[in-house]
């Protein structure tokens, strides 16, 4: 089933990006909920270049999924009404409340796969038909040949026969492969993968990530991978955006985020990963919980849990670029030696 050895995969994901043109840039995405003063997602900005993988990380409920859904106009109607912001796509600018503009990107320019392969395929239709349908929507022809080819590329054995299968005849991993085939049948510029491996067995997780990597390699497709698994981030990311309570608190190249984390939340997140080597210590965690929309503090949203919080944290910290491509939204960035040592 493995099309390539695991080792190759690592180098491919991390390969040097030769074409550096920007594919998408999201600016000032804000999602307001009627009746609440502070927005659910507040001024989020992201950018992805061709061939790059951006990993969006953060705790559950930090707005990762909402951000990705807003990008393609698939938020639930109640939230969609409160969206503002801009999407730059391959040179075009689209307002994020422009449903028609965003719907033109879906399926053709942007493919998306979701967390739940078990429920994301239509149980009443054959999988071949579900893939072919995605092709037919944007291209002439019946899409049958393309569907077989995609099933083959995602590593499904005997694709011609499998075309006639219903989703319930496939395992979770196989279904996620079918989802990937469906999302990529139109060779989109961007693949959004919202925790694509969370619901799968660990061994299958690696296979699926490897598959996404191999389909991206050599092409110009950008990938936005939403995850809370820092191990995955370390392996596949080109860039990382750390989200907390609806804001991007730190973003930059993967080396900078792992090697030189600046935001207190990022630092906490990094130290919560158990180490395989070295002395066994109590696992570090970030104390407290993410504030809900009712309890959201003014200013820095991490202040309620931050060990370095000061009175001035009641003002919203601006996002400052402390190194090329490395931005942090903290009043105290870059952290001085004393504070970094204390963390």
């Amino acid at each position: 089933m493995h099309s390539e050895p695991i080792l190759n995969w690592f180098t491919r994901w991390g390969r040097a990006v030769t074409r550096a043109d920007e594919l998408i840039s999201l600016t000032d995405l804000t999602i307001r909920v009627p009746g609440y003063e502070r927005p659910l997602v507040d001024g989020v900005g992201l950018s992805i270049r061709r061939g790059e993988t951006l990993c969006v990380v953060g705790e559950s409920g930090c707005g990762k999924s909402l951000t990705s859904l807003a990008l393609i106009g698939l938020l639930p109607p109640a939230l969609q009404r409160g969206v503002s912001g801009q999407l730059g796509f391959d040179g075009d600018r689209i307002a994020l409340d422009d449903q028609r503009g965003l719907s033109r990107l879906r399926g053709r320019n942007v493919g998306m796969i979701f967390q739940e392969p078990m429920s994301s395929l239509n149980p009443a239709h054959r999988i071949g038909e579900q893939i072919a349908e995605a092709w037919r929507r944007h291209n002439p022809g019946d899409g049958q040949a393309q569907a077989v080819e995609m099933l083959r590329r995602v590593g499904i054995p005997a694709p011609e026969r499998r075309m006639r299968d219903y989703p319930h005849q496939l395992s979770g991993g196989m279904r996620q492969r079918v989802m990937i085939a469906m999302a990529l049948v139109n060779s989109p510029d961007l693949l959004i993968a919202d925790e694509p491996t969370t619901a799968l067995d660990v061994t299958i997780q690696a296979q699926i990530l490897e598959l996404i990597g191999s389909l991206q390699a050599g092409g110009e497709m950008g990938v936005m991978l939403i995850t809370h698994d820092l191990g995955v981030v370390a392996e596949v990311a080109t860039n990382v955006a750390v989200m907390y309570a609806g804001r991007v608190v730190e973003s930059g190249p993967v080396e900078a985020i792992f090697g030189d984390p600046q935001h207190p939340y990022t630092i906490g997140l990094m130290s919560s990963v158990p180490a395989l080597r070295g002395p066994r210590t109590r696992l570090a965690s970030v104390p407290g919980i993410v504030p809900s929309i009712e309890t959201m503090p003014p200013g820095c949203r991490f202040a309620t849990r931050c060990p370095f919080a000061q009175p001035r944290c009641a003002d919203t910290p601006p996002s400052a670029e402390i190194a090329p491509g490395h931005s942090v939204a903290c009043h105290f960035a870059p952290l001085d030696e004393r504070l970094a040592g204390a963390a």
Partner: protein
Amino acid sequence: MLSYIARRLLVSIPTLILVSIFVFALQQLLPGDPVLALAGEDRDPETLDRLRELYHLNDPIWMQYLRWIGGVLQGDFGQSIRTGLPVADMIASKLPVTIQLAVMSMIFAALIGIPAGIISAVKKGTITDYVANIVALSGLSLPNFWLGIMLILLVSVRWQLLPASGYVPLTEDPLQSIRTMLMPAFVLGTALAASLMRHTRSSMLGVLRQDYIRTARAKGLGERTVVMHHAFRNALTPVVTLAALLFGELIAGAVLTEQIFTIPGFGKMVVDAVFNRDYAVVQGVVLVTAMGFILMNLVADAAYVMLNPRLKAG
């Protein structure tokens, strides 16, 4: 699939036997003596005895049952005490009328109820949804006899568009036959449309929340394709099941509606038979109705399997 249907048919045999026993027993428990009703004014004991003998009413009940069920199995439902005609012939003459009425009513119900249910689910919480719900509720609450009389008043008496009553067999003059049945079918159909609409709506609302609907949208499919091809296909099962069961009810006859439009269907025959204590007719009609119900249940089950790939394979 075929073996599934065969299995279901076998299972329905005990049900039918039970129904036949109930039907037969019910008749015995009813007050009133059919012989008295038959003899009328001329009640000398000798005549009554002769009549009892003629209809085997002096035999033990179990023998009466066996005689009856044995005949039924050979297509002989006995004779009407009232008219002397074979019950099988009477049923055979009414059945096409009732089936035509049921089919036309169901077409009305489906054409109104299902689209209305889909639209109100898609437009949930909007004016359209509220209006559809109010109309559906009115459809459920309006008594059929009132709607029937109003239709006759307006459409037949005032505008003179359709005949007010009567029946023309489909084989004789198809167009006129459909014209005479249009209003009664509409009256029956609107009441059913309301329940179909409510079921379609709630089923669609459940399906529209599913992950695979989001997947369909993420593929860039248009709203029409998402709703009809992806959502409705999955929402159809409970609707088809309900429609089949409602159809079974229609076969049992629509007494009031048939009376208003003087349609010579099942419902009217049953009422007449009950008033006349015409046991053989009542038994025959109830048994045929029960068979219709069991058949429709089977259709509902088969549809359920056909619409679910998961069950079709197994």
